[in-house]
């Protein structure tokens, strides 16, 4: 318990859309020192891209929300294909109108808020560390969405395809 308290107190606090204050390597190094092997193993496996309600016992509720999010994403895709109005069950309705970047940010904001909710009932527990990792993933992802790198990706896809075509 004291290790968990120490770890959580030593980690920099995270705010949405800020520059990540810590790298994953640093986070893992600090966590490995303070967590048991089992807890650290769980921390390593938890991944915002692969949230699965059966696997992550500690984050079951969030995994269910994540499944709902995927349901809404599927609805957004289907509605676009079928050219009909979107019926979102969980995500904000405004999501359908924004540009792809705004939409992705809104989705991440939604995930962040759900993680905040999850954190609210827990203090100095493994859940808080897991949530910290997921939030850190969101921040690193947000950080990667940068105009210059996006432009480079776009140009390289176009140029590669042109060369091969």
């Amino acid at each position, binding site marked *: 318990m004291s290790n968990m308290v120490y770890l959580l107190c030593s980690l920099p606090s995270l705010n949405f859309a800020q520059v990540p204050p810590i790298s994953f390597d640093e986070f893992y190094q600090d966590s490995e020192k303070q967590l048991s092997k089992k807890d650290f193993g769980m921390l390593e496996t938890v991944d915002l*891209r*692969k949230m699965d309600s059966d696997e992550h016992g500690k984050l079951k509720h969030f995994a269910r929300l994540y499944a709902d999010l*995927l349901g809404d*994403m*599927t609805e*957004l*895709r289907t509605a*676009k294909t079928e050219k009909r109005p979107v019926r979102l069950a969980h995500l904000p309705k405004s999501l359908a109108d924004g*540009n*792809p*970047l*705004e*939409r*992705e940010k809104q*989705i991440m904001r939604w995930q962040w808020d759900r993680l905040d909710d999850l954190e609210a009932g827990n203090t100095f527990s493994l859940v808080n560390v897991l949530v910290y990792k997921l939030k850190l993933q969101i921040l*690193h*992802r947000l950080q*990667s*969405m*940068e*105009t*210059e*790198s*996006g*432009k*480079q*990706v*776009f140009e*390289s*896809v*176009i140029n*590669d*395809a*042109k060369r*091969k*075509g």
Partner: protein
Amino acid sequence: MAGIKIKYTKTERAKQKKILKVSQRMLPLFEAMEKSLMSTINTIAERIDDIRQTIEKNREASKSWLAVMGDSWGSLAEFISVNEVITKPVDVAGVRVQQFERVDFNIVEPSANTPLWVDDAIELVAEQLQLEAEIKCLLDQIELLEEELLDVRARVKLFENRRIPNAKIAIRKIGQKLQDDDRLTIATAKVVKTDKQMEVAYDY
């Protein structure tokens, strides 16, 4: 014309007249072909400009969200690549060229947890690549049409500067020579006749 040996015969004159007649009939055809090729090339160039404007417009429209493609969670290149550019042969201003039909893409359907922006990026990339492929096709068309235009221009020049003037000169020169020959024959005949008359007078 210099260096060309002309046969000063009626047959040659007839031949040159035929060449002149054919050349004068062909010249307007080649001139019309030249005009048609030039106008087609201009139309294609305008189409290329239009497509380039559309590409630029799309680029401008996507500027506000291009950053999302830097997303460390999605690799756009895995979702779309060009399989084949489909074209069909058509005759444009008498030249066989390849006309752009469409681009056949290899598109990997995004899964449920693929970020949503990937769908939009696939659409944008596909549209830009279609437009780029059409430009390439049109540039190839221009290249072929320009080759043909050079050929037609050379023919027009050949008719304007060589065949028609040469035939005209040849006809004139042969005409003069034949006239001279006629005059000479008449003069000779007159001299012979006079000589004969004088011989007859002496005899008496």
